[in-house]
């Protein structure tokens, strides 16, 4: 039976693949916002009962992940001349193929995990694979992209994956943990925003690769 949960999880897979395969920063931010909504509605779908706490957590998650963070990133990006991720360490097509391998790995691993979690959620469908795949996607984005914004975004995607995994493993206390994580993440994104701003003002670009070279070392113009 195709449930709403399955559809949301498949959409999560697709947004992850979209992140791996696209080159425009604007698309990245929009996909991250969509992913925030997908992850945000998850508690409502998993819990079945509409407790006030559940709704509050869902609303909070959606507000932070799909409104606040994208808004912050769009703000950071406003000053950029170049809104594309140029020359990543790994091409988009290779990333996509790697992504498919990661989907396979996620499905393979999650089939071998012991069935834990209340309500047999781990056994249920795509939750665990989607969580693992989001973590892998975040990892790939973090490692292979050059721009600081994209790396922050990879971190966000990874966190989404951890959130979904938390939903599977500890459905009851996940909200408390999640609130803490969200706060950390907010501070993280905020700090990175300030850092990116300064890096950009200092060096006229946010290519982290070039930060390895000292600026005032003569030689290079």
């Amino acid at each position, binding site marked *: 039976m*195709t449930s709403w949960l399955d*559809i949301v999880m*498949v959409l999560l897979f697709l947004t992850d*693949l979209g992140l791996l395969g696209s080159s425009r920063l604007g698309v990245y931010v929009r996909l991250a916002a969509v992913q925030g909504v997908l992850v945000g509605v998850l508690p409502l779908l998993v819990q079945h009962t509409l407790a006030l706490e559940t709704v509050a957590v869902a609303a909070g998650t959606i507000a932070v992940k799909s409104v606040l963070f994208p808004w912050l990133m769009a703000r950071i990006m406003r000053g950029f001349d170049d809104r594309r991720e140029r020359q990543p360490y790994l091409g988009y*097509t290779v990333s996509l193929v790697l992504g*498919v391998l990661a*989907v396979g790995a996620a499905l393979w691993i999650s089939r071998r995990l012991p069935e834990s979690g209340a309500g047999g959620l781990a056994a249920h469908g795509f939750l665990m694979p989607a969580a693992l795949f989001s973590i892998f996607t975040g990892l790939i984005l973090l490692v292979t992209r050059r721009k600081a914004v994209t790396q922050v975004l990879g971190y966000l995607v990874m966190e989404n994956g951890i959130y979904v995994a938390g939903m599977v493993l500890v459905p009851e206390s996940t909200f408390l943990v999640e609130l803490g994580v969200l706060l950390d993440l907010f501070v993280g994104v905020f700090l990175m925003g300030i850092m990116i701003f300064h890096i950009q003002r200092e060096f006229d670009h946010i290519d982290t690769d070039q930060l390895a070279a000292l600026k005032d070392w003569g030689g290079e113009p």
Partner: protein
Amino acid sequence: MNGRGLIHYALALLLAPLLLGVINRVKAAFAGRRGQPVLQPYYDLVKLLQKGAVYSRTTTWVFRAGPVVTLAALLAALALVPFAGQAGPLSFQGDVIVCVYLLGLARFFTVLAALDTGSAFEGMGASREVQFSALAEPALLVGLVVLGRQTSTASLGPMFAAVGPALWMTAGTTLALLAVAFFIVLLSENSRVPFDDPNTHLELTMIHEVMVLDHGGPDFGLILYGSALKLWIFSAFVAGLVVPYRCGNGWVDTAAAVGALLLTALVVGTVESCMARLRLLRVPHLLISATVAAVLAFLLMTR
């Protein structure tokens, strides 16, 4: 052999050029023009078939065989394609692979005929065609394998007969991914807009048009008819997935399936009007995305 399959086959032969007409009409409507008559492809075919042919002295028999073999392969492939949930006139276990190979054979002879002219320009077109179809074929084949696995058969007829509201309920996400993959393959294989612009004769952007540039008269008529059949085949795949509802009465089903094909043509025309052609370097990326969608469907199915 079955009666309704034969009727569908005749219907396909008769109505295939209509799809091209509909696409042109939709594009004209988007551009605010009245556009050519819907039946224009038929007039074109009749006109071309009445003309004489001119052959360059550098060409050999391969050039003359090209259009004929291409059309023959497509006619054979069409006989395998199910329509309205009913198997084609020919149906046997494993006809999936035969169908894909027949489409490959048609492409192979178009490419050979293009190379036979000895023109570097056509060689370029041939190279592009082969490059793109090498990427589109895995998407189609993996997609059909997923469908076969889902319905546990290796024959196109039963495969598409099993696609129905029930299967959409149990495996809707898989089917939706497949539909997307098939649609991208349709656009690529029929050289529609994000991949190729069928209207342009601008040298650097064409793919398919380059290869048939040296054909004229009846040969070009055969090629035109062949491309209409190819569009019909791929549209039948997509429409068979997306509009699976059958009501039991054969004739209503047939009419509904024809309507679904015309709807597919409408969507193709809309895509063509709303999108710009992709840069040539970006084309493989989109095709690999189609393959990725098909492989994802495969992985999700085997979980």
